[in-house]
Each structure stands twice: as structure tokens, then as C-alpha cells.
């Protein structure tokens, strides 16, 4: 447990990674371990970042979305099935697309 690295770890706080924030940025090179590190680091790390950037940037630039019948339980990881999984009764994350943005 390391609240010293990620204060309020349960919160989704992108600003913790920003250099401009008062608390100072988290050194992502050290503490971003989703891909592991070293010789066995995920080989697809560059591809994954590219897909994440294109997907998130275009979707949130172009559309107004809202969650549909989706709650925290649909993202909270409770299973170690090698991959992290939320409750298997989760119906998944669903959204309504309200409108296209100019």
C-alpha cells in the first residue's frame, strides 16, 4: 500500500500525473507499471498508447456521451483472472451517444 505514491488512490485523478500541479507529478517512468518494466515489459506498449490516444481523443472531441445503466461496480476490479476483471455479473460499460460536437 502506497498512499505516499498515489494519495487518495481510489480516486480517478489525472492531475496527479501533471507537472504543473502543486503536488508535483508522479514520475510515470517509475510508477506507471501497467506494462511492467525491463526485458519483459509488454511488447505492445507503443501500440497500446497510440490506440488509447486516438480512441479517447477522437471520441471525446467528437461526441457527447453519457453512461447508461453503468456504475462503479462495472469497473471496480475484484478478480485476478491473470487480467483484472470486475464482477462477472457486470453487463459491461454502456453509453448513450447524445450528440455530435462541432
Amino acid at each position, binding site marked *: 500500500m502506497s498512499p505516499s505514491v498515489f494519495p487518495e488512490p481510489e480516486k480517478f485523478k*489525472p492531475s496527479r500525473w501533471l507537472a504543473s500541479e502543486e503536488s508535483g507529478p508522479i514520475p510515470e517512468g517509475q510508477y506507471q507499471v501497467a506494462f511492467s*518494466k525491463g526485458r519483459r515489459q509488454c511488447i*505492445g506498449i507503443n501500440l*497500446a498508447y497510440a490506440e488509447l490516444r486516438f480512441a*479517447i*481523443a*477522437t471520441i471525446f472531441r467528437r461526441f457527447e456521451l453519457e*453512461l447508461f445503466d453503468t456504475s462503479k461496480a462495472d*469497473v471496480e476490479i475484484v478478480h485476478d483472472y491473470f487480467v483484472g476483471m470486475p464482477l462477472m455479473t457486470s453487463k459491461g460499460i454502456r453509453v448513450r451517444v447524445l450528440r455530435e460536437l462541432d
Partner: protein
Amino acid sequence: MHISDPDFYSEIYHLKAHRTHRDKFYNLEILGPGLAFTTNHEVHARRRAPLAPYFSMQSIQVLVPRITSLVHQMNQHLRDAVAAGTVIHANHLFTAFAMDVIAEYSLGEEGTTGSLKRPNFGKWWYDLTQKQVQMNAFFRHFPLVARAMISLPDALAVKAMPALENFIWWQANLRAQVKAVLETNEKGNVPSTPTVIHALAASKLPPSDKTVVRLAAEANLLLGAGAETTAATISRTTYHILANPDVLKRLQEELVAAMPVAHEMPSLSKLNQLPYLNAVIEEGLRTALPVLSRSPRVFQNHALKYKDWVIPPGVSLTILQCSLFHTIPYSLSSLSPYTFSLTYPW
């Protein structure tokens, strides 16, 4: 041995100078001898060498037009949903996107799963994965059963464990595709665009690493890891953005400023430079825990020092990501671990 100290992570995982095997127990043998499940240090290095250039920054830059054409397809579905008023299943849509990217890159045009063109997008793969991953824990504890399953003819294996049906179908499908790749390669035909499994077939890997079984396992890991983890991260990040209006607002302000024309496709280098977008993605990766498993390293000749302790070579060492991320206590509380139960999900 788990060391609950984030500052020791670099000692175990960053060090490149030492020989480290992967811990056997945490391997998923049923998934075959792909790169990620190659325990031996040297064999791993040998198998990784011809694969790595295909995932370098430069190679991904070359891949961008193929990625963005799938981004277009994906966004078209969202546009259609505005008019139709339909609910979009984010996991299915993002699974289709990530699967189509990696399947086409790994196996070429013939390998593409066309998931974004299917009525339910990536539902077929999402459902298959949901079933298959639940068996990971079982096969980890009973590797002999896994080995037996692999050696059985497909029809018999399905009979023995019906939950494996789709998994076995998928493996057979990959073997057939890899066979076709090997035949193309033998004829000296080169694909028109870079394709990972073709490249491995044409590489200097020893023949034992280029069998149908080995390359099908590699394809399985590339597609499995490329689709499930990426899709889960995009989906869960989408949830968090929408559940946190202040995050959404700040993200959209940055995106509008950087991309004044909504429907124009940005360049990757432009996206790389957007601080808040990238902070959202880092936070998404932190909280999504796409790969949760312990991933122990076994140092072969090097003794590590932790405080006053000396950890001799041969000890299986790990730092569990979620204790470093500190997003969840590792108790899996919703599973009632202290309740004796013989009910399994399959």
C-alpha cells in the same frame, strides 16, 4: 516472495543486467509457448528479438494510417448511434477496435476479424475472453489438466470441458491461419504491408520456434493481449471520464483547442503532446489494472538486497501491481474468500 514496497519495484523489474527466469507457476501453459509465457531468460530474449522491431515507435508510426482507418469505422458507429438512439456497449465496440488493429497487423488482411463490421462489434471475442479468463486460475493450479487438454484432439477436449469450446475453435482457427502464412512464406511471397507473423516466419529464429504450434501460440498472445487489455483500458477510462464531470470538462477543453475541426484526424505526434489527455490515459492505465496477475522474476545468479535482507538467487520475487497502484486491497472481498464454496463460474 512479495515485497510490499513500491520503491523496490525497480530493483526487481528494471534491472536488465541479470539473468531472470519467469516463475513457472504464474505461466498459463494452456496458452502455449508464446513470448509472454516463455520462462527461460535466453529463450525469451531469442524470441523477443525478431518481434521487437515491429512494435518500436517507428513501426507504430508506420501503422498509424491503418489504426486511424479503424478509428474512423469506430466513430461512424457512434455517429449512427446518435440518430438511432441506440445504447453502445463500450466493451464490445473497443474490443472490436483493438482486435481489428492487432489481428490485421499480426496476420495481415486475411487475418482481420472484421469485428467492427459485425452487428455486435467485438461481442464474440469479449464473451470468449470472459469465459476463458475464468479458467486461468484453475489451469494455473492444475497444470497437468491443462497439459492433458492441449494434447487431446479438439473434439475430445470439448467433450471433456464444454466451456473450452470457443477457446478450442479459436486455437484451431489460428493454427490454420499460421499454416497459410508458413506456406506463403515458403513460396517466397512477401505481404504488401508489414505483418508480424509473416515476419517471424521469415526471421532467423530456429526452426523449432517457427512451428505451427509455436507461431499460433505467438499469434494467440498477440491478439489476446492486444485486444483484451487495450479494450478494457479504453472502456474503463471512458467510464471514469464520464463519471467525473470535471475531468471530462478539462479534457474536452484541451481537445477542442488542439483539434479545432472536430472531424479532422489528429496526428499521433500532436496527441503525444497533449498533457491532460496523456494524464487521463496514465490514470486510466493505473486504475484499469488490465494485467493484474503477479509476475514473479527468479534471479539466476544475482542476490538482491532489501534493507538488511539478502535474497539469494533462485527465489521467486514479485511486487504485486495493485499494491503499488493501491487501488484495491488484494483480498478479492466480493468473492468471500473465507467462505467454503465449490461453485465455479463455468
